[in-house]
């Protein structure tokens, strides 16, 4: 089982430590993981802004980069969801059949559904509030969406239960959007900031010290609000907790 680590553009630039934690974590659970060099972007920012065609060559490039791997695994639910949901029809228009969509996983989904570790050495003696991100929940089904009448589940919570000392909370509006939305955040900045503020306050009301989730983009957005307003909470990607101490 060969796993290609998918590091989206902004994690590469802003949160390399998330990539490092993802790599260490996969190693720890015994996965043969490699990083195909010189990755850039999956094309989601352009496509969500309405320029899907600008994502075509990026999708083709991703296909080439990950051709030889059994799985593509990335620490960003939204980017993974984009590849899974949208690369097929983007590539179809260019005459390609998308292979990545069938083998790409968000790292939490991959750990939870494929690797299924029974234990992790991680210790994280803190209170965390789970950020159930829109695309993680509603496209990748990492947890039960609040809108649907299906039994509660959370793959993130299940994974965090392997971490010693942690206390997990969830906000009242359990999977309301944080207002990032890619280009939305700058096209509708007032609404976006308002959503971000409300979301952070909801996380703070749980008494948590950290907001954690599978999407660095949401965390980046909320971190921007936290820093601007000097709010008493921090953000941390879930792989950094799962890989704590490695």
């Amino acid at each position, binding site marked *: 089982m060969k796993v290609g680590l998918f590091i989206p553009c902004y994690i590469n*630039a802003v949160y*390399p430590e998330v*990539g490092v934690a993802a790599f260490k974590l996969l190693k720890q659970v015994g996965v043969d993981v490699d990083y195909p060099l010189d990755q*850039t972007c999956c094309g989601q*920012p352009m496509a969500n*802004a309405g320029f899907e065609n600008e994502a075509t060559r990026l999708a083709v490039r991703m296909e080439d980069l990950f051709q030889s791997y059994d799985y593509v695994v990335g620490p960003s639910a939204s980017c993974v969801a984009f590849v899974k949901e949208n690369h097929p029809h983007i590539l179809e228009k260019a005459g390609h059949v998308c292979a990545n969509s069938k083998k790409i996983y968000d790292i939490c989904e991959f750990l939870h559904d494929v690797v299924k570790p029974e234990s992790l050495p991680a210790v994280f003696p803190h209170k965390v509030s789970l950020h159930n991100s829109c695309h993680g929940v509603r496209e990748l089904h990492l947890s039960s969406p609040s809108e649907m009448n299906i039994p509660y589940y959370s793959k993130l919570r299940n994974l965090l239960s392997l971490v010693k000392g942690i206390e997990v909370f969830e906000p009242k509006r359990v999977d309301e959007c944080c*207002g990032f939305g890619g280009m*939305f955040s700058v096209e509708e900045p*007032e*609404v976006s900031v308002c959503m971000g503020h409300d979301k952070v306050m909801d996380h703070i009301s749980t008494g948590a010290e950290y907001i954690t989730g599978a999407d660095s983009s949401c965390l980046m957005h909320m971190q921007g609000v936290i820093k601007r307003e000097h709010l008493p909470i921090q953000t941390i990607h879930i792989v950094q907790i799962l890989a704590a101490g490695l």
Partner: protein
Amino acid sequence: MSTKHSIAAARFIENRPQEKWHDETLWMVRAKRDKQSKSLPEWERLRDLASAIKMYSNSHLETLLQEFEKNAIANGAIVHWAKDAEEHNQIVYDILKEHQAKNLVKSKSMLTEECEMNPFLFSKGIDVVESDLGERILQLMDLKPSHIVLPAIHIKRQQVGEMMEEKLGTEKGNFDPTYLTHAARKHLREKFLHADVSMTGANFAVASTGEIVVCTNEGNADMGTSFAKVHIATFGMEKIVPNREALGVFTRLLARSGTGQPITSYTSHYRKPPKGCEFHIIIVDNGRSEILAQPDHVKTLNCIRCGECMNTCPVYRRSGGYSYTYFIPGPIGINLGMLRNPEKYADNVSACSLCLSCSNVCPAKVDLGEQIYKWRQDLDRIGRANKQKKLMSAGMQYLMERPALFNTALKFAPLVNHLPRFMVYNAVNAWGKGRELPTFAKESFNELWKKNKVK
């Protein structure tokens, strides 16, 4: 890179207490809806069925509408067909003229809003009275609805009270909702009793029986149709359902989704006109048949106008109905506006963070968020793509397609971290409104990997 929506939304948010009230009140409706939906183990099956019935009925309109007409005529109704808004309004006016009617009492109908019927009839000298309390309040204030189910959700009790003092002579300074509602009850009671003609929309039109079904909580449709000798019911043709059994699915979903009630107070079935009365039914196309030809958007015809996509939409809740340029706001309004006139209503397409909550709450499974994504792809083609956004996107594409350039950019990106604040957080930096920029890492992941630092 602003749109009409984003500008209006910014204005709405300026009044933060009102925005917060609007957000929390509509969220409360969403929470009530969740409680109701979770009280039925078969909820998701009902949604599947509702969607499947609509996919069936909307792809068999040719036969179902004719079956409906045949049965309605057999019931004693007079059936009219209207190609567009103009013809619809003319049909209504002709009926009024024929009966020398001076006034029309109507219940809430998004279709008559769509056809802009009231202004047309006013211009002909007809006194049109909206009888839904929220709609009546707005009519007396000369305002438009900001939500399709909760039309006056943006109005405060004090505003209602002050208007009623002036228009209905209520006690000065009494803003109690019960007092005001009962004052309106008295005022509208007179209107009902002396209506020349009454009008309703229809939530459903049943092909197998030729009846129409109207759902209200107030009973205004029923009061309106109880005294006038003429009842006009109008519906957009996607309101057709094949039979009563199918109604069982929709009446279980509609109010639970829309207001979080197990059913509306009144689910009224109008089948035959009372003795000595006339019952007119208008079947309206007004662009619906064009939607049939658009496979990407045909599911918008599944919509049963419950309004829940507005209540769940984090953008709608924080921007209010007036921030949208189409008369129906929220996720379904963004889509219906684009289907009506994409050039004219493209400004609403920005009002979505693609969170997809709307698609999940929709009782008839309209893929609302996914369709908004598709509309965004069309903006460039119709010349409505934002130039600045297009430039940003193209610039990003250029960079991302050139890994070497991207890696170089990452090397220099940390320099931004040290720029003076006034350069980073200037007027053109929309991100800087309310958020700090992320800090670029000294070494990118790619760089770390190359240097063998990832172990």
